[in-house]
């Protein structure tokens, strides 16, 4: 019987001043590469959740490469979607900051991704947190 471990990577940190939110992306993406360490039938299913200040990581047009010489969290977000990671963005926190959907990275179509990010009420994120095996807060 297949055993799926669900992991939630919850991002509440602002981007760039610290590595925290970037680590959430890279850990979530890396969780897709651990298959070689797993037994047959085992798998990992990550979900990325953005709450509080963390929703700022989801803004479009981040020019971190231009100014800091580093890959932007925008690119990490797109890579996450390209790998079909489930991405949930808290609606209440977007509303709190007055951020509209058109300001957000909702897909990775430009690099061939098919999965879209979801804007959901916090109650949906809460359900996801209850369903996972492990929660990591960044």
């Amino acid at each position, binding site marked *: 019987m297949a055993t799926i471990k669900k992991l939630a990577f919850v991002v509440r940190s*602002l*981007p*760039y*001043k610290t590595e925290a939110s970037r680590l959430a992306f890279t850990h979530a993406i890396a969780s897709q590469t651990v298959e070689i360490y797993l037994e047959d039938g085992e798998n990992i299913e990550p979900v990325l959740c953005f709450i509080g*200040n963390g929703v*700022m990581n989801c*803004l*479009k*047009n*981040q*020019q*971190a490469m*231009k*100014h*800091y010489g580093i890959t*932007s969290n*925008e690119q990490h977000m797109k890579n996450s979607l390209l790998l079909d990671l489930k991405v949930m963005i808290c609606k209440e926190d977007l509303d*709190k*900051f*007055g*951020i509209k959907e058109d*300001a957000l990275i909702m897909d990775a179509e430009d690099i061939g991704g098919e999965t879209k990010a979801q804007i959901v009420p916090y109650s949906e994120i809460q359900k996801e947190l209850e369903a996972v095996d492990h929660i990591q807060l960044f």
Partner: protein
Amino acid sequence: MKLGVFMSSFESGSDVLDRLTAEKLGIILVGNGVYHAAVKDSGKESPIFKKSANFYVLAEDLESRGFNASNVDSRAKVVNYGDVVDLIFNDYEKIIWI
């Protein structure tokens, strides 16, 4: 005194900022401090704008986070690194970082 205050956090810094007085006060928003000028939390402007000060926002940090000058509160002037160096050397005698 002429005091320049760098703010690199989205926290209000009110424990220090509320008490500061200066003949000329400049608040320079860098790093995550740019959010004070670029977003309204729960529809409210950042409390830092209650201070009587000249406000500046570093363009590089603004743009890295997905914003541009059109997102910035009109009381804040968007400046680049060169402008910040000029502010430090020409406009403010003392500089602190909160």
